[in-house]
């Protein structure tokens, strides 16, 4: 008897939290389908008529199409940059010999441990000197650099755990170090690479502060920045804003639902190791 009661309470609490998690997202989607006047008067989750045209207006008139496209550019190039630059370096740290190897690795790890808040200020000065302010390249480089330390850390320990026999066999066949890295180590590193891809993609897609500081041209802004620009100029146009937010969120949620096992595994592994 006692057990049934406790079980019911447990499930009740859990379901309550689930509703709290999901309701704002559902509300966001529901508001995006209402008309300008309905959004202020109809308080139910279900709109009277689903106004899908809000999405077309958001994509074209409100420029969310441009912002979305920019986010894709930043995410794709940022992730590719992290994957290639970090894997090269991680492989070197794991398998190759070169001068100052341990010192450099320690330096790299120190950036993970020491917090530097307000780093955007000197980064702004740097990009200004390099004439990379308000350019896509400048922002992408910042994003790549942001993801390097953790990716190198993760990949290095992964590469270290790979069995050496495959690589030694290839070396005896006369393969260059680069082709060993590219043809043997990288394919085997897919699980770790997947984690890095997902994490950096999520972080770059959701990033706001650097995009705020480094970009001023609306045509280059990613979708998080675009949302704030829209909100600043069309404060009461909630349906369009909610449609824009949904456009920003759908890819994230889709990737999350497809890859959640990966994501959760990655976090727990990383956190427990730390």
């Amino acid at each position: 008897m006692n057990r049934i009661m406790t079980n019911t309470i447990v499930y009740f609490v859990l379901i309550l939290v689930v509703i709290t998690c999901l309701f704002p997202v559902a509300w966001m989607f529901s508001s995006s389908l209402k008309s300008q006047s309905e959004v202020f008067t109809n308080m139910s989750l279900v709109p009277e008529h689903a106004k899908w045209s809000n999405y077309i207006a958001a994509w074209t008139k409100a420029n969310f199409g441009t912002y979305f496209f920019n986010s894709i550019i930043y995410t794709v190039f940022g992730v590719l940059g992290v994957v290639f630059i970090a894997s090269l370096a991680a492989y070197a740290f794991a398998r190759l010999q070169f001068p100052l190897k341990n010192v450099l690795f320690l330096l790299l790890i120190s950036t993970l441990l020491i917090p530097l808040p307000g780093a955007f200020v000197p980064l702004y000065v740097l990009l200004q000197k390099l004439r990379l302010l308000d350019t896509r390249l400048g922002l992408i480089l910042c994003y790549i650099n942001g993801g390097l330390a953790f990716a190198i850390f993760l990949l290095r320990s992964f590469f270290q755990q790979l069995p050496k026999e495959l690589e030694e066999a290839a070396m005896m066949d006369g393969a260059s170090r680069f082709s060993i890295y590219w043809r043997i180590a990288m394919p085997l590193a897919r699980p770790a690479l997947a984690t890095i891809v997902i994490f950096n993609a999520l972080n770059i897609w959701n990033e706001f502060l650097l995009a705020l500081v480094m970009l001023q041209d609306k045509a280059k802004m990613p979708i998080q920045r675009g949302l704030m620009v829209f909100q600043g100029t069309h404060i009461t146009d909630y349906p369009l804003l909610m449609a824009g937010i949904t456009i920003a969120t759908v890819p994230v949620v889709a990737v999350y639902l497809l890859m959640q096992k990966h994501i959760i595994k990655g976090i727990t592994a990383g956190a427990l190791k730390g």
Partner: protein
Amino acid sequence: MHNRSRISNLLFILPALAMFCVFSVYPFVKTFQLSAFQWDGVSKSMQFVGLNNYKDVLFNNPNFWYSMGAAGYITLLALIIQNALALLLAVLVDRGVKAQNFFRTTFFLPPVLSFIVVALVWKWIYDPNYGILNFGLTGLGMIQFQGFGWLSEAKTALTGVAVVHMWKGFGWGFIILLAGLQGIPRELYESASIDGASVWQQFKRITVPLMIPTFVVVSILTILGSMQIFDLIYGMTRGGPAGLTHVPITRIYEYMNNGEFGYATTMAVVFGLVLLIVSLVQINVSRRASQKI
């Protein structure tokens, strides 16, 4: 031949090293250099001011320390309420409910959303006249909340933001704590219950001591994440009403925007030191606590 291969190995690490030097090392060093100068971002030269910025930040800028307190308030709420909730949920789910995956997936959905998205959606929920929160509250009979501006009233603004921060953040703690709980071998609990220990005693004697490292990780992540909050504040209140929801990063951003680059980096350095000290204290305290147990 050895030497040649060793140095050509450097090519592997060259791109990462180059990026690191330019985008990490240079800004780190530049922060300290800038903090000793005064620069408006426009002039071609900077003015050296020595330690003046530091003196002002440490002794003459109550607004900055107030913003530190505001971030501290949010962090405290997160440490206590958010993590307690995460622990409770992790314990409940760990007990072996059905559909564990479903709960894990939904609880981790808020962390996956961006801060701006969360800020804007919750700002709409909090809207004084058309938001669903006040609609629900007045519907339940609490008519004093009709037209109540959660984010524009002095007493509720900061807490309102803190609630959203916790809503978004508890999923992180939940996942990590759940993984920690699932790492505890079941046999320990089984043998303890055979010995007659109650559920609460098992929790106190087995779970808590073994979970201390996980608690430390969650606490440090919470502290570092909550103290450096920015996007949420920017999206919901921009530091208002009347500057009550300003946090250190928004203040640094404000000073930079008003042409005080040197001073802004000084604030960043001081803030970084505060974070470092807090993290070290946290690790020390938990090390002592685990030794006691």
